């Protein structure tokens, strides 16, 4: 499938917005003003953009603890996300969820998730609902290499095949489950190898290459939407920061991140290719850079200025009566 110029600019805008969001959080978290934990997605942006560009209002995603990129790519409001992370009443969850519980059902974003391997069962449920209701929607679960070892993920892969669910399982293998290398902890090395055991296709794509992800993602979404059939895709990617902000990362090589930023950065690679092909001008991308920076600056200012939830709100939104 050929990407139009509008598609290319949209892809860059998503990736750049995520990058600016995460780089800024890295700085802001160090000030101590942000409550709870944050897990940054910088370095992995091509994955969120490459998949979510194929999704529409009918579709749902389930995310994980590293969910900011997924949320932005699925269309969550950046101001409300930032306010949520700051714990303000203007946040997506009224400031009571924080980074690891960002959710916006109106955008099909079923939530970041603090439970490792918690997303795939939710995606199966959403896919089953879409199938039963005949909406034409699909569900996509983003999870990591650590989660790929969890029983919940195995059960979800099994269920998705048994029920022919329109579901896509995306393993974002960034090399480490917290501090444990996937080379040590994933028995089959490529998590995609597990797909065969559940009778579904499993492929590996380069997580630094937006075009590779976008193409494989398009085929997986088509297969889910048209054939109601599940797919597992493993994205080989890297994160630029620690498992969480404050992680000393003693388990990583000395220049590992420096080399990744210099040679494998998904935004740099994207820019080089679209400009050398004369499809997009550098100036157009520069303009997006500026707009993304301004957007995040404004989001931080507004988040800091917003009020915290009132004490009287403590027990609202906690339980739902059916």
């Amino acid at each position: 499938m050929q990407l139009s110029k509008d598609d290319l600019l949209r892809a860059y805008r998503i990736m750049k917005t995520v990058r600016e969001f995460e780089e800024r959080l890295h700085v802001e978290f160090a000030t101590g003003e942000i409550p709870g934990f944050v897990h940054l997605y910088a370095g992995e942006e091509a994955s969120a953009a490459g998949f979510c560009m194929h999704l529409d209002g009918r579709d749902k995603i389930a995310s994980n603890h590293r969910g900011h990129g997924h949320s932005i790519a699925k269309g969550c409001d950046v101001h409300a996300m930032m306010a949520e992370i700051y714990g303000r009443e203007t946040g997506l969850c009224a400031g009571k969820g924080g980074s690891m519980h960002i959710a916006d059902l109106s955008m099909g974003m079923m939530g970041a998730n603090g439970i490792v391997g918690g997303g795939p069962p939710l995606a199966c449920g959403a896919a089953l609902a879409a199938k039963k209701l005949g909406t034409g929607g699909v569900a996509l679960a983003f999870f990591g290499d650590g989660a790929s070892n969890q029983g919940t993920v195995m059960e979800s892969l099994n269920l998705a095949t048994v029920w022919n669910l329109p579901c896509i399982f995306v393993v974002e293998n960034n090399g480490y489950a917290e501090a444990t290398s996937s080379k040590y902890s994933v028995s089959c090395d490529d998590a995609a190898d597990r797909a065969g055991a559940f009778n579904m296709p499993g492929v590996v794509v380069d997580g630094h290459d937006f075009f590779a992800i976008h193409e494989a993602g398009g085929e997986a979404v088509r297969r889910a939407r048209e054939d109601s059939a599940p797919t597992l895709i493993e994205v080989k990617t890297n994160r630029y920061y620690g498992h969480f902000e404050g992680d000393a990362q003693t388990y990583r090589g000395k220049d590992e991140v420096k080399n990744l930023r210099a040679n494998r950065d998904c935004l740099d690679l994207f820019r080089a290719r679209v400009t050398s092909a004369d499809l997009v001008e550098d100036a157009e991308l520069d303009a997006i850079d500026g707009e993304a920076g301004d957007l995040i600056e404004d989001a931080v200012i507004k988040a800091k200025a917003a009020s915290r939830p009132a004490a009287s709100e403590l027990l609202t939104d906690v339980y739902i009566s059916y």
Partner: protein
Amino acid sequence: MSLDDHTPSVGILANPAAGRDIRRLVAQASVFPIAEKRNMITRLFTSLGALGVATVYMMPDEIGIANRIRHALETPPPAGQTWPEVVFLDMVVEGSAADTLVAVEMMAALGVGGIIVLGGDGTHRLVASRAGDIPLTALSTGTNNVFPAMREATIAGLAAGLVATGQVPGAEVSERNKALRIDVNGVASDLALIDLCTSTALWVGSRALWRADGLDQLFLSFAEADAIGLSSIGGIIRPVARGAKGGLWLNLAEPQAAPMVVTAPLAPGLMVDIGIEAVNDLRPGEAVPLRAARGVVALDGEREIEFSPTDKLAVRLEWDGPLTLDISKVMAYAAEQGLLTRVDETSRHANQQGE
């Protein structure tokens, strides 16, 4: 290094990424797990060790084959077996195709008597670009390949070991292959072993080429009638043997606008209508310019080179591809010479007396 300079060492190059691409999603290509590659390699150790190959050089990798082999080496080989010493090359692993190129160059510098390749057409293409005259034992890890064959690793190891140890003369059991060379702006850029195809797709993307739309020109070094992949297009129309002097080049078109249409198996489980505009002989040494102004060049089925209107590209067929061992020939030679036979002199003497 010539075929007759024998050293008791062999290189094994197993592509950890082979068998994972998008053809598992868009077609029904087989999945070849790393665990099975590891098993194949240990079977190679068994036969290489049995023939006296002292050292095996291997490429380290990020994904897991090297890790699995190190794990296998932590316990002694099965009773009665002697495995060669396994040395992992001292190189920086980038996790890309460049690793294969570096590893092959290092193996060549170490004077290996052969390289056993586990992978698909793409892996063999990379190895061929750096192997020079080192004979390759080509093993397929999947059903989606033309250049390497699906062979039992134990037998392939025997063949490679017999040649590497000098028991079978390499020159008698190896074959030179053709190569399709691509020149970009007058500079030799890369090669394909079987097929080189241009497409109007703009991006390398997920690499594999499986859609008919946008295919523009196809160059084939050989085209067997029972092939899978792009070369099946030529194989259906005008088969060309692997050892035939020349090749083919075809101009392709949309099926509805073409004078001829073939339904070709472009990947396992995938039959696609391809429009044929023209079929031409490709003579060795002749440079054929590409007609598309913008697009991608796929080498052995994988998109590799993006080009724009400022680039000038041409394709040549040359007889300077890699040397490959004919495993059947090696084993037949060994049988004829009794190289794998041991005769008990006492019982032979007794038998002769009884006659």
